[in-house]
């Protein structure tokens, strides 16, 4: 996928993270310990803003976000620099999302992530304007990647034409992060 910035997110199961601020010390610890193996800089807090990226772990090449939406909390990874080659970008952001989510879960065992509804946001209006044509163009690549990784899925565009292009990936089941991680690690040919 040709895009400067790609975000992949999954929902956080309702009620398992009552206060998004609980993630703040976890993010600080990730920076301190270098446990994601990349340059991470700071933790930004926007809990005072409604329906916002409430807590952001800001990095040089990636950000990790607890996002409050009207439908509930989501956890996102944003790949913003030093991206992998075009044909590996989705894989790259997915790997980072799962790695960070697993660290959050290890630190806060009550937190549960759902993997039945993934959302890709392409934060690059130059290469991927939010149009039906772009959605169609990217659906092939996203669909192929998602089916290889997750099995049977459906893809839908986001509802807001003024927002960045969104592709919603829906599947019939939610599996543990570890299962998704294991499948992602296998070569694509398998």
């Amino acid at each position, binding site marked *: 996928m040709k895009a400067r910035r790609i975000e992949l997110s999954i929902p956080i199961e309702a009620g398992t993270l009552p206060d998004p601020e609980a993630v703040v010390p976890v993010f600080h610890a990730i920076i301190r310990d270098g446990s994601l193996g990349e340059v991470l800089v*700071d933790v*930004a*807090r926007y809990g005072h803003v409604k*329906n*916002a990226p409430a807590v952001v772990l800001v990095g040089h090449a990636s950000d990790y976000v607890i996002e409050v939406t009207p439908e509930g909390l989501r956890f996102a990874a944003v790949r913003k620099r030093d991206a992998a080659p075009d044909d590996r970008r989705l894989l790259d952001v997915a790997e980072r999302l799962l790695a960070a989510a697993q660290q959050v879960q290890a630190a806060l065992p009550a937190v549960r992530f759902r993997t039945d509804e993934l959302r890709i946001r392409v934060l690059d209006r130059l290469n991927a304007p939010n149009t039906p044509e772009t959605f169609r163009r990217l659906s092939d690549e996203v669909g192929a990647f998602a089916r290889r990784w997750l099995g049977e899925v459906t893809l839908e565009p986001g509802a807001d034409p003024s927002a960045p292009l969104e592709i919603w990936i829906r599947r019939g089941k939610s599996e543990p992060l570890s299962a998704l991680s294991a499948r992602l690690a296998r070569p694509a040919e398998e």
Partner: protein
Amino acid sequence: MAADPSWKERLAARTRQDWSREIDVFETQLELRQRGKIEEKLFAETRLRRGAYGQRYDNGHRQDGQKAQELAFPERPTKGPGTVWDAPGMMRLKVPYGKLSAEQLEAMAELAEEYSDGILHVTTRQDVQLHFVHIEDTPDLMRRLAAVGITSREACGNSVRNVTQCTSAGVCSGEAFDTTPYAHALAFFLLGHDDVQDMGRKFKVAFSGCRQSACGLTSFHDIGAIATTRAVGERVERGFQLFVGGGLGAVPQAAQLLEEFTPETELLPVSQAVCRVFARLGERENRQRARLKFLVKRLGIEEFRRLVRDERAKLRPDPRWTAFLEALGAGDERPLRAGAPLSAEAARAAGAGFARWRADNVRGQKQAGYTTATVSLPLGDLTSRQARAVAAVARLLTGDTLRTTVDQNLLFRWVSEADLPALYAALEQVGLGDGDAGTIADVTSCPGTDTCKLGISSSRGLSAELRRRLRVIDAPAARELHVKCSGCYNSCAQHHVADIGFLGVSRVVNGRRVPHFQLVVGGQWTDNAGAFGLAIGAVPSKNVPKLVDALVARYAAERADGDVFRDWVQRVGKKEIRALVDAHAHVPPYDVDPSYYSDWGDPREYTIGDIGEGECAGAVVSYLEMGLAASEREVFEAQLLLDQGEPAGAARRALSAMLQAARALAHERNPNVSEDAAEVVREFRVHFYDTKLFFDPFVGGKFAHYLFNAQAEPPASATHDVAHQLIEEAQLFLDAAHACHAKLVAQTSPTAAE
């Protein structure tokens, strides 16, 4: 295969050519810095003047609560002294007098999503800031802004910052007249003006439509202009009470009256003269004393006034001084919808939330049937999605009448009263339906330790906590108080003019650092920030909310009829207030309550180890140094043009590079030298060739002749070889200009040149 699309190509037709060129120039400077062709100090001032500011941890180090750790950014050149290239920074978007169109707000929302973290932050100077922006993204970010009529030029650095204005200008019943066209004219007259490129420190301008209200805050500006009129026979003449030399910072100083009545025709030239006096005589070595307020204090207002008048008399006439007056009224805002009253029945039907929001956030305009409506932004923040929703409402109900406010909110103007329920419903739907505008819960905060390199304590963490607690206060007198929190003494949150102000400090208690805030009381928000408060004493950050509760409770209980907070403070006396502070000053031992040893919202053990070198103003880089850097860049661009097979353009650029360097030198001797090529060469010849100052010890005036020859026969249609030779000559001329610069420095400061 088609080339990748670029914002430059896509937006070319929609962008002013001069702004487009400026951004291209900046992009070239980025490239030159990466190649080590521009020194870091110069590049830092260059990027600051384009609004690209440093941010906390950009020195590549971060305290984790126990120790400092290195942030392993890729190895690259720095982007300023002690500033790592890849460290994220802040981008300040200038919004002259706060006026925003729906299209502009939408563009900013997109930029926040694609280059920042999805949050737009409104500042106390009516700017918008984006944080965590990579320096290499800034040219495209600037292009996308320029395409909707916004420039970040001179948003930071030693320059004229955003011109601010009362947000009610044009709709306020108390104003002498609408100052908007004057603020607009002055903002764009000074933007990039030659006379403001060589100032030793930043320079701030504010407009107010009246004397008595707070809105313009003219008392703490370098130039504060208050609208006034006088009768001249049958005619009413417009003008301004002009104040100069105000400022906050560590030691606030009230602006002094420069002229009781500056006619509207003189507003621009007198302001220009003030800038020139400041540029010429302002402090340049010690930046702690370099603001205009120190110069006015040192000279005395009488002498400063005399100097300004002398300077004014010497100015070359400029048609822009009065051209805007011929079009007064042409740019006035017009309502999108007819003004209509809101019926009591419709107001009731809109619900209790609407009633509360309306009471706090809505004010009548002088135009019947219309109101302003404030969008309360907690700590000045809104998301991209919210920004798009605000823009959509503006398109539907008000047109392009939005304003950013100095208390970090947004304001709709020209709202038909009948549309208020629809406006509220739309805001409520995206989480922007809070009331509390202008109340005690509408806490103002600077970025503090969240992102600012100078932050000592977490002003945003504290402000978020105060905002949450203070929303429940309902005593009317207490609700009217203003609370402002700065993370250090620099007063970016304007704590000196709050009823209850705080500034971040640190204290060592029980052998450990503990974040504290100094309480500042006695400030006055009204009367254009009529009085500055004084610090009373410090309390630990975690005790500030309790101290505020105690202050507010006593004020509500003890105030006399008609008292404002400042009256009450004066009546009870600072000693009493100090006793309240002392009662909240205790810090328990670490093992009893370690929470005191961390700041609001930050679980790390508190330290001041992350405080860095401020970029509030860059190092003083002289006009000459900037000119030589620009010349350097033009020589490089000439090479690129030649490589692209455009020898004629390359030759023209090479000549332009020599003229640029010659003009920078000539400016040292004659600050009035224009951009006219013949005049530049003439002045250069008189001051640097005839005096032999430009001469090389071995070849004498040879390099100067490169300029003279090229100027005598401008290269209209050069061949590749001619252009190549001219570029080489331009490089030699530039090297000679650098050598000449060193001689000039040695003349004034023999040790500095060593």
